[in-house]
């Protein structure tokens, strides 16, 4: 135990200046966990629909819970969008390209902006093009 704690550890998060790739790496994990929770919620919704559980579906999507659920879904849309865009970058990294520090920082910011734009576009489509 004492030995394990006296060994050098890395990275020392507290002594590093924050930079975009660090944020994007942490966000990839965080959004991955968020998407996990979102998938659990999505399957629960499917089961509620399949078992004709109208009172519970109504509780989630109508009345006082309507906007709580909607904000959760908007957060999930952003989380999935970010993980999707940054996942493409991970595939590029696996192929051996895109390791330059300056380009990586720039692409981190582009991915964050793109994920916000995608979320806005999907919700604009859902709230105007959808039936309700």
């Amino acid at each position: 135990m004492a030995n394990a704690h006296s060994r050098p550890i890395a990275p020392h998060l507290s002594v590093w200046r924050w930079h975009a790739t660090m944020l994007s790496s942490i966000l990839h994990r965080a959004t991955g966990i968020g998407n996990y929770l979102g998938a659990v919620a999505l399957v629960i919704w499917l089961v509620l629909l399949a078992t004709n559980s109208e009172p519970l579906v109504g509780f989630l999507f109508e009345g006082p819970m309507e906007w709580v659920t909607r904000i959760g879904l908007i957060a999930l849309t952003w989380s999935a969008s970010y993980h999707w865009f940054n996942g493409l970058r991970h595939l590029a990294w696996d192929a051996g390209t895109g390791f330059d520090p300056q380009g990586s920082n720039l692409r981190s910011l582009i991915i964050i902006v793109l994920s916000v734009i995608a979320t806005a576009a999907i919700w604009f489509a859902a709230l105007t093009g959808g039936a309700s």
Partner: protein
Amino acid sequence: MSQSFRTPAKRINPHGAAHAGTGHFIAQRVSAIALAIVLPVFVVTLALSGAPDSFAARSYFASPFGAIVSLLTLTAALYHMRLGLQVVVEDYIHTVATRTALLVLNSLLAAGLWLAAAYALLTLAL
């Protein structure tokens, strides 16, 4: 001549790596490629379907296109997220009993959710 270069830790624990990492790495990437294709199709068509209104959502999942795209997306997503959370647990949880319990729970949850999703989609579509 016969000097050993093995470390003391290596001598008491000679098993080394589990040799299962490459399969995990490839499975994570293959499911990522599947999701890169099907996830946007699923999200955009569901968003335009009129969901979460119950009637609109039911008719989307009941349509052949909606049912197949949903099943493809959830299958790839549940597989991908099981692999992903496994790595998160292995990275951050160091107590063996807790780690083992969470890894088993992760596997059972992903498999159970997939069966529930497949059952629900088949019920809605057939």
